[in-house]
């Protein structure tokens, strides 16, 4: 390991990017740092789970039971009397599945979004005392949240099979949506982690707008239910793109529209690079502030 530290961090980052060889090295930079620290990410994610289930007799069972309870409750409540037109139009027999399929990507977002502003502060003891690459905190938070989402996803598919008797083949394409979604989430985490360590206010803002996000996102309704006059604006919320596409793939068996899919990648990459750039720009200051 050889490194240089200069007064201006941005130059240092550019230097290391240039050293990586490729003329567009800065584009790959967020990925290469993540890849270089993959062992570290793995070890820390492992210990977070080990720690969480230590001292509980049933361990992993709890990670599985809570999504089952939630989906079970939705199924009981929405089977029959509560069946809403939104579900019928989306071609989904069971509104519970309809909601749950949206809640998985939605909760993935809210968990990370809520945690991001305090990410640096929570790990301050680590950042100040060891040579810790702070941008890996974003990857670690994502991996952790993804594991829970994965459990919920498996339960969703099991329920779908039990209730409707089939899982559309397009469910296999879900990773094609999940990958750009993860990049989008990482960008969000980095951006708010940087902002949140500069001031506590960001954490408060995030907690207060959180309840609003769920109504602005197609969780209880689908974009098709939005009045035509404002339907175009529904996708201004990036979450809508990913939620709709995931749900259509997994439940309705509908392959996303090409333009929408392109938009998903565009939003993801812009968020990813901007988030990373902002984080790296302020990284050296953050260690002194938190």
């Amino acid at each position: 390991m050889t490194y240089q530290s200069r007064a201006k961090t941005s130059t240092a980052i550019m230097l290391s990017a240039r050293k990586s060889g490729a003329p567009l090295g800065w584009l790959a930079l967020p990925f290469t740092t993540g890849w270089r620290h993959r062992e570290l990410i793995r070890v820390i994610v492992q210990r977070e789970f080990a720690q969480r289930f230590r001292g509980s007799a049933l361990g992993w069972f709890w990670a599985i039971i809570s999504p089952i309870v939630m989906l079970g409750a939705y199924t009981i409540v929405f089977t029959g009397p509560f069946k809403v037109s939104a579900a019928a139009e989306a071609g989904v027999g069971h509104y519970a599945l309809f909601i749950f399929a949206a809640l998985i990507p939605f909760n993935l977002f809210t968990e990370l979004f809520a945690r991001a502003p305090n990410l640096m502060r929570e790990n301050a003891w680590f950042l100040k005392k060891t040579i810790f690459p702070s941008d890996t905190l974003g990857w670690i938070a994502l991996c952790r949240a993804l594991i829970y989402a994965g459990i919920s996803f498996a339960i969703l598919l099991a329920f779908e099979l039990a209730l409707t008797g089939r899982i559309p083949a397009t469910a296999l394409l879900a990773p094609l949506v999940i990958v750009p979604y993860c990049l989008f989430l990482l960008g969000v985490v980095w951006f708010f982690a940087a902002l949140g360590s500069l001031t506590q206010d960001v954490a408060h803002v995030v907690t207060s707008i959180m309840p609003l996000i769920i109504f602005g996102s197609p969780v209880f309704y689908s974009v098709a239910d939005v009045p035509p006059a404002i339907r175009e604006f529904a996708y201004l919320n990036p979450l809508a793109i990913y939620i709709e596409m995931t749900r259509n793939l997994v439940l309705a068996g509908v392959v996303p529209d090409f333009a929408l899919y392109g938009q998903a990648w565009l939003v993801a990459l812009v968020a990813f690079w901007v988030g990373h750039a902002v984080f790296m720009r302020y990284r050296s200051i953050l260690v002194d502030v938190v």
Partner: protein
Amino acid sequence: MSSDLVIRAAGIGKSYQFYTHYADRFKQMIFGRFRKFYKDYWVLRDVSFEARRGESIGIIGRNGAGKSTLLQIICGITTPTYGEVEVHGRVAPVLSLGTGFDTELTGRENAIIGGVVLGLRRADIIKRFDSIAEFAAIGQFIDQPMKLYSTGMFMRLAFAICAHVDAELMVIDESLSVGDTAFQDKCRTFLRNFRKTGSILLVSHSVAELHNLCDRVVWIDRGRIREMGKPSEIIPKYQSAVHEEHDDASRFLIEA
């Protein structure tokens, strides 16, 4: 740039920003290029020195002189406000107590994370774990949460990990003095062997330690290098200076 250069610090300075009002922080972020909304506290100013492979450098100075900040900069934990630092090779930092451990985790778990943070592969650190545990010599405590550890046990484990990561530069911040004599001897033996291949950067208030372990001593006074040279020359000067100066608050002045 010669290949055996391990540390090159060229005119580094570090200031921390002190804000009188919280809102000034935002003003600084937005209008920072036009006006300054904070007070500077210069921890380090114009510090330049080099260390070659196999060279051990001691750093002395009074509390608040900037020693720990200098180590943090060398380790890459924080960046200098101005100047340039170059470090070649793997650094193992035994920084002042509480070295990056999660106290909820056991010593074993922390050792694995600590080793990976310093650039080892997980498999390698597991392979070396027995040797780490033997060096730390804290017995059954290795599998207990670190919140149950004593200060000495913390330091034992921290040093044991850093001794096993194939470092080329060991950065040690006043931590040796925490261990008991037996452990200090063990560390000293280790460091004497380590010096044959690697470099050491050591902050210490112990004169004997500096005499024993260092080729050169850098004396830092209020953020600046006051003198640099052989331990036998610098340490007596430093000691007599400390006796003459008053121990008052004037050395911690925040400038407008």
